[in-house]
């Protein structure tokens, strides 16, 4: 049993940390493709607060308010294309593609 757990653990592909910078009232990059298990970090570089909030009724994630210099994260657990926006600034949109 222990052997099986170790094997599964070792065979798991490494996960990455991917960053989206929020600056100039935009998400950079606006479209980010990651692998299942990767962690996406949104860092706010703007003076004004932002959020990165998944669209839809059931929100996959919501960083809540990020002041300048603060970061929020989400571990991508399911494949798919997820759109998100800033709840304070509805003109700001981003897309997260999980493969």
């Amino acid at each position, binding site marked *: 049993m222990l052997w099986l757990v170790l094997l599964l653990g070792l065979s798991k592909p490494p996960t990455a940390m991917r960053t989206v910078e929020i600056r*100039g*009232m*935009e998400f950079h990059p606006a479209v980010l493709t990651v692998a299942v298990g990767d962690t996406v970090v949104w860092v706010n570089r*703007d*003076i*004004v*607060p932002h959020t990165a909030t998944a669209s839809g009724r059931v929100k996959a994630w919501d960083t809540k308010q990020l*002041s*300048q210099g603060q970061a929020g994260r989400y571990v991508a657990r399911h494949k798919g294309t997820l759109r998100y926006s800033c709840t*304070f*600034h*509805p*003109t*700001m949109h981003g897309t997260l593609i999980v493969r």
Partner: protein
Amino acid sequence: MSRSKHSLPLFAAALVFAAPLAAQNPPDLSDPEVAHVAVTANSIDIDAAKFAQTRTHNTAVKQFAATMITDHTAVNQQAAALATKLGVTPADNAVSQSLQADAKKAHTALESLHGAAFDRAYMDREIAYHQAVLDAIDKVLIPTTDNAELKQLLTNVRPAVAAHLDHAKQVRSQLGAAARTGK
């Protein structure tokens, strides 16, 4: 004719302060004066948003007003921190006074309105105001600023003002097909 139809052209006329200033002879503001204009412009929009929150029942307008308070407060905090760092005391000037006089007129006109008429007039005012501030940033404030950090702050603030303008237009378009007052 309703009062709003009189008052909004007045806002529009008053709010294009940037245009005549920038046209042929932009005012040569000192950095302390630029700092004062920036703080005044932010404070005016915060006050307008606080008033809107007491008057509107529209969710999109309420959210817009909340964002204006949060964002312009954050910008003013940065401006104050920079002024302290640079040892600059913001100095009152003709542009700040003109902004304040315009704001007073705008507030007086909005005070008489309620319901959907208020929402439309407030959003029209926000569109005109952010457009005027954007023009002022581009044509007056950035070109006349000497200090690199103050210039950078204005440059950093510009996308937020542009986004507010787009946000205001988006909210205004949701307020129904009623003709835009004053247009």
